[in-house]
């Protein structure tokens, strides 16, 4: 699984990363997490409100920090 966190290092992005790590750990799942902070790249996903979450090329969440439970659902569990 390929996961991208879109954001420019705001506090919400860090929180998203933390929640994501917790979700992956609890699911015993592995994924490559890449942080994207280049604005032109972020916008090219159609995202203007950060943080954005992209899983396998698909935008799953924008402008908010999903809870661990919601993240698990987005990860397909």
């Amino acid at each position, binding site marked *: 699984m390929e996961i991208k966190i879109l954001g*420019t290092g*705001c506090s*919400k992005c860090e929180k998203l990363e933390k929640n994501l790590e917790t979700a992956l750990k609890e699911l015993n799942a592995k994924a490559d997490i890449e942080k994207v902070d280049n*604005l*032109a790249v*972020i*916008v*090219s*996903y*159609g*995202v*203007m*409100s*950060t943080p954005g979450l992209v899983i396998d090329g698909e*935008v799953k969440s*924008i*402008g*908010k*920090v999903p809870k661990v439970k919601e993240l698990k659902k987005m990860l397909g569990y």
Partner: protein
Amino acid sequence: MNIFSWLNDQLLKMKWLWNLVELLVEKVFKLSMETRVGGSIHFFIYDTIKIFILLSVMIFIISFIQSYFPPERTKKIIGRFKGLKGNIFGALLGTVTPFCSCSSIPIFIGFVSAGLPLGATFSFLISSPMIDLASLMLLMSFFGTKVGTVYVAVGLVVAVIGGVLINRLRMEKYVESYVWGVENVDIEIEELTRKDRIEFAKSQVKEIVGRVWPYILIGVGIGAGIHNWVPQSIIEKVLGEGNPFSVLIATFIGIPIYADIFGTIPIAEALIAKGVGIGTVISFMMGVTTLSIPSLVMLSKVVKPKLLATFVAIVTLGIIIVGYGLNGLSFLLI
């Protein structure tokens, strides 16, 4: 007294809180309200509590409304309107879109790459920090319905005209070229449930209050200082209506400062109490909220210096005209 003015006094102006803090200062601290110390302590406590209450309630309501207009959707709405209508909708949507200055650049890139006219994008960028529903309610609470309405109305006019001018000047070539290379992607935005929106609104209250509280305390502190310690004569000399440069001075003091309307209100309140003209005060508030060094630094990443300078010049001029105009018409407002 009719029910409407009672509601206005108690709910918006929070007369009950004023009385409560007066009791606290006089009975608990044993300070007279007439003394400087007593007066400024009252100002500080009352204003701080009032602003935090208003702030939390307003951000909750507004975030709920805003959850219907994320920038990804705003982009599509503005894109439907051409010419002046695009500017008007840009300015109007700027008042309800979730906004912190950190998101202005992705929004700029997103709008421009979607082919929205540069002018409509700038109308949005001007109105976004300058006016929102929270500032309307706050201004109504502190200065009355007329001042609140007028602030929003002239703010929208500045945003629309500013955008139209930038369109007319054909500044497209002064946008950094990489912005044009970004592909326009529309994403499907999931429909939120009411519960999601309430969750979003709650998290916005937490986040925004957590971010702006120091600015509010500083603002209230400065306000309390002006209110009780700076002699009226000095304020009048610098910012009073007798000084023809008052609006210019207020605008240029306001521009470099970075704060939002919540931190600015207590200063404005103290200035008005000292007899500063309403136009001068509004210029100061617009200068603080709309232009600031941090926001210009960010904007400079996507536009070239010439467009940046044009933007600053147009907004500054607009704010100054508003100030002198409203000072001239102040007899209608207060």
